[in-house]
């Protein structure tokens, strides 16, 4: 009988092997992070492994290193503004792509998703050349335009995914019950696609905060972001301060994800 196959054997020798494989894969992916973490506490004078002793001096150095502090400020301002813009643009674009049939639909879709496929270095080069005559190099506007271009595909993708699983008759039902377009969007559509929108926003924030190539081309001299400062720092000095900084950055990213998850999770539980 074919049904017999549905019963799994009690001991499957593939299982422990699979577990080991997964463990090794994780180890491989996380090893660089672990090393950075260890090195950030190492007293070695230069960036190297294994550690010779334990110290907190690299962390103590960070607030005094003005390039890092300035870079952090620029990066945060950029990431926050980019996230806001990209949500304000990306969600309507995704809605239009999902809900309307129009002639240029395929073209619009590929246009907004194309930055994912083009190497950032090519984009960055194009932007420098374009921004020159517009006086946008070394300005917030320039960096933000660049970051919006590379992060908007994420928001559109995650929002489209949420939209694909929603029942459009919910919106129709709300309209029949007397809701105008804006009320329908605010009270029905947005809450339903909220998980996709938030996920897109978080990814956009992290990608922008992390972005080095475009920032380097567009604003290296005038308005260096944190990743640019890190690159510069590593060029000139070889101590473990960057490792300490990296750990801080990882913790910030983690904190964003955890906070969002908590807030969302909480809200869901309360509803």
């Amino acid at each position, binding site marked *: 009988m074919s049904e017999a196959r549905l019963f799994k054997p009690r001991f499957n020798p593939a299982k422990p092997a699979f577990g080991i494989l997964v463990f090794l894969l994780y180890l491989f992916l996380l090893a660089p992070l672990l090393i950075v973490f260890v090195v950030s506490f190492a007293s070695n004078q230069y960036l190297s492994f294994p550690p010779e002793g334990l110290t907190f001096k690299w962390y103590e150095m960070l607030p005094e290193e003005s390039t890092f502090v300035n870079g952090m400020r620029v990066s945060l301002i950029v990431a926050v503004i980019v996230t806001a813009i990209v949500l304000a643009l990306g969600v309507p674009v995704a809605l239009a792509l999902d809900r309307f049939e129009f002639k240029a639909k395929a073209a619009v879709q590929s246009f907004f998703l194309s930055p994912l496929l083009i190497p950032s270095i090519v984009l960055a080069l194009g932007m420098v050349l374009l921004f020159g005559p517009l006086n946008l190099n070394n300005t917030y506007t320039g960096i933000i335009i660049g970051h919006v271009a590379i992060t908007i595909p994420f928001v559109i993708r995650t929002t489209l995914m949420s939209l694909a699983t929603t*029942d459009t*008759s*919910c919106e*129709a*039902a*709300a*309209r*029949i*019950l*007397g*809701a*105008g377009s804006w*009320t329908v969007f605010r*009270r*029905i559509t947005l*809450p*339903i696609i*909220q998980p996709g929108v938030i996920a897109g926003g978080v990814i956009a924030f992290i990608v922008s905060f992390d972005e080095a190539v475009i920032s380097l081309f567009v604003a290296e001299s005038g308005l260096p972001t944190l990743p640019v400062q890190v690159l510069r720092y590593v060029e000139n000095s070889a101590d473990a301060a960057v490792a300490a900084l990296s750990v801080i950055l990882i913790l910030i990213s983690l904190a964003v994800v955890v906070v969002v998850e908590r807030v969302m999770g909480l809200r869901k539980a309360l*509803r």
Partner: protein
Amino acid sequence: MTESKLSIVDLTKRYAAGLDPAVDRLNMEVEEGHLVALLGPSGCGKTTTLRMVAGLMDPTAGSIVVDGKEITHTPVNKRGMGMVFQSYALFPHMNVEQNVAFGLQMRQTSKSEQKRRVAGALDMVQLGHLSKRQVKELSGGQQQRIALARALVVEPTLLLLDEPLSNLDAKLRETMRTEIRSIQQRTRATTLFVTHDQDEALDMADRIAVMNGGLIEQFGSPTDVYERPRTRFVANFIGQANFLNARVLSETGSAAKGETHYRVSIDGLGQFGAVGAPGLTGSTHELVIRPHRLRVSLQPAGTETIAGVIERVNYTGDALSVAVKAGDRVLQAQMPTSSGDLPRAGDAAYLSWNEQDAYLLPTPVKEPAA
């Protein structure tokens, strides 16, 4: 002329230029308090019609009048309708109470009034105890009732139901059929009910609009469309039917409801009595006889009978269907079952009927070109 609650005048929808219209010059008058079923096979334009009445879709032509006011171009959120979707379309991020209250909030009803009416609507569908439940914690039947409560709580001008029972299992469908009908009668909500299930339509509706290819083939009471189908399509779609081409020879008297008795001749089988609209003499019409209205006798009996041979017997416990071959035709008939001997394939059978059960379709059959 009594004012109807809803008038649909020459309503037409063409999805794209060049395509056949999905709804083609549809006309319908619905009385206050009636439940009207839009009945027809899939793709005949039922949903399109309903969505135009709801305002979710603009008609290509024609008009919709409710309570004497033309609403053809009134925006959907200003029409004050209530609709239950096939998928129920409950708001997944709100609980039961919030779902039902939504329409009242849109109408700026006071908080206390909202509370009272939501409770009333939930009681009406017997789900008062679930008011704080999340939508996804409800069964299909419960979601259906909440959707109904949400539509009715606003006291809609029209209640629109698009195949509300098709996602339920057979048992629950029967229960909900009765329940929806009784709630509809209690609230006297004028209702359009889309379905492709003729039993549902016959059981629930005051009037049935039988649709086919974007047209209404017939609009009438359940007994009208069942007993007096206007077209072959209607006779076939609602219940089963035998069709026999009959030449109408002469009138033999007047029948009830303005109809006329006729003598007809059926090729190769003889002359019989039938009934139909006045003025059919001289042309050929299709004669419709329901299988259970055919008397089957195993001995020759009387004169106006069709003699044949039983070709097939289907025993379902309650009934016995037999296929009787007479000449080159096969007729379906039903017999009461008994615990005694049952007829078998190969037995001789003699079919007869009451004159008023043999109905001539009003439109003549086109004579084959000689």
